[in-house]
């Protein structure tokens, strides 16, 4: 199939960072299964992305193994290099299969649900609104980041004072799983991870992880690996979902009014639509243990399949007017949290974060308008570096 079409996925195509969706639509419409030069495959249509996410026998690839293979190269000629990337990512559940995956996943889930979420989130919201009160202009990404940071910092008892440092730590952790990362950045990630080995102080969250993983005899590095992923997964995607969603809503005064007047049920519907529209995690990877046919394309066993969730969430076969944020969208089987065995552990938390914050934040932000946006070049996780908002005169 791919040989018949000139449309090739290219995240470096013009304006991809600003708006990947026209390019993804082009791929979906004209070449929905593409073989890449490294024999991996990209899949763009909802039907197959959804099916493969839910396929029980499909595996995830191991980031830790990949980084382990590359460490010799990454740290060649680096004085006092202390390769830690493979070790640091060893127990990140989205890259684990089978029994160890189930155990780590259960531990993290239990730890998150041991928290007094509603109290923590309400307190975070209050702090955030207080921090930005009377500001003429600010970065909306930080507005959202500070809300999530306040919650996650308390929940995980993170010993880092400055928000900017937390943001950098989280972003470098997120980059470790990105595409097209040069060794120079891996070295930076490695140094950051090593320097923050002791930031997760004692907490109920950590106690629950330890209790739940007793039989696994985790060492300190493995415990750190779990704490890191709990932190990054909670901070990065929530910040991105909220900031991308608010950015879109602020462009549309009617939408702001609609949301401010919504009841609980309507609010839940809108929030699902924001998840669909934002899709912070744009791609995820699976391995097929047996050969498959996707459309006309034969995919040999053990291939790396890049499932483009961002494209699936805009597939017009499933979603009417997919490029519009429709607050009362009734049928909305979006895949923003993935699906199947690796479905997002924090989905419920993400929903609660939104339910608590969306209306109060919009009440505050409706007096502001977006004046500038700087998108990050990240591919797997879509994020903006800055969304500048200014008070309306």
């Amino acid at each position, binding site marked *: 199939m791919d040989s018949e079409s000139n449309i090739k996925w290219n995240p*470096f195509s013009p304006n991809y960072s600003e708006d990947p969706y026209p390019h993804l639509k082009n791929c979906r419409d004209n070449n929905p299964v593409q073989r890449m030069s*490294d024999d991996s495959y990209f899949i763009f249509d909802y039907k197959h992305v959804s099916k493969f996410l839910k396929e029980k026998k499909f595996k995830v690839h191991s980031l830790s193994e990949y980084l382990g293979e*590359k460490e010799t*190269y990454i740290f060649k000629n680096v004085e006092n290099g202390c390769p830690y990337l493979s070790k640091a990512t060893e127990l990140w559940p989205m890259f684990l299969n089978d029994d160890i995956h189930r155990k780590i996943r259960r531990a993290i889930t239990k730890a998150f649900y041991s928290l007094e979420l509603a109290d923590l989130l309400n307190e975070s919201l209050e702090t955030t609104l207080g921090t930005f009160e009377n500001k003429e202009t600010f970065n909306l990404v930080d507005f959202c980041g500070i809300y999530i940071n306040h919650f996650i910092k308390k929940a995980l008892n993170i010993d880092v004072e400055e928000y900017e440092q937390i943001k950098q730590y989280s972003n470098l952790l997120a980059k470790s799983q990105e595409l097209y990362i*040069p*060794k*120079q950045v891996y070295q930076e990630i490695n140094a950051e991870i090593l320097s923050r080995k002791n930031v997760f102080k004692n907490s109920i969250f950590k106690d629950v992880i330890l209790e739940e993983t007793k039989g696994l005899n985790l060492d300190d590095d493995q415990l750190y690996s779990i704490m890191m992923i709990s932190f990054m997964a909670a901070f990065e995607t929530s910040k991105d979902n909220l900031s991308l969603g608010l950015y879109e809503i602020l462009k549309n005064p009617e939408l702001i009014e609609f949301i401010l007047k919504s009841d609980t049920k309507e609010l839940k519907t809108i929030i699902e639509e924001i998840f669909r529209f934002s899709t912070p995690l744009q791609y995820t990877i699976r391995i097929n243990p047996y050969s498959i046919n996707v459309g006309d394309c034969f995919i040999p066993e053990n291939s790396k399949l890049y499932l483009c969730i961002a494209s699936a969430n805009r597939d017009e076969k499933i979603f009417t007017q997919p490029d519009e944020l429709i607050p009362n969208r009734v049928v909305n089987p979006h895949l923003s949290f993935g699906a199947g065995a690796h479905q997002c552990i924090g989905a419920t938390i993400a929903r609660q974060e939104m339910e608590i914050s969306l209306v109060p934040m919009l009440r505050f932000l409706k007096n502001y308008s977006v004046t500038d946006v700087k998108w990050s070049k990240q591919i797997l996780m879509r994020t903006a570096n800055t969304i500048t908002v200014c008070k309306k005169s």
Partner: protein
Amino acid sequence: MIIKNWLLDKIAEESGLEKDTINCDEPIENFELDSLSSISIAFDIEKEFNLDEINPTVFQEFNTINKLAQWIQNQI
């Protein structure tokens, strides 16, 4: 010439080949650089020559040291 020499040094370092065995008209893919090293070289090119983000596909389009050196020359 400076750019070409810099590229030769870089590719020798990354591939582990002796500099004088590298043919500047030979496709870079023959030096068996994997995707991570190509991206890392692109990153170094950006820094060294003060260029904006380079599309890693330049290595496919300008696939020899001579072609790549000419391409960089045209960018700066």
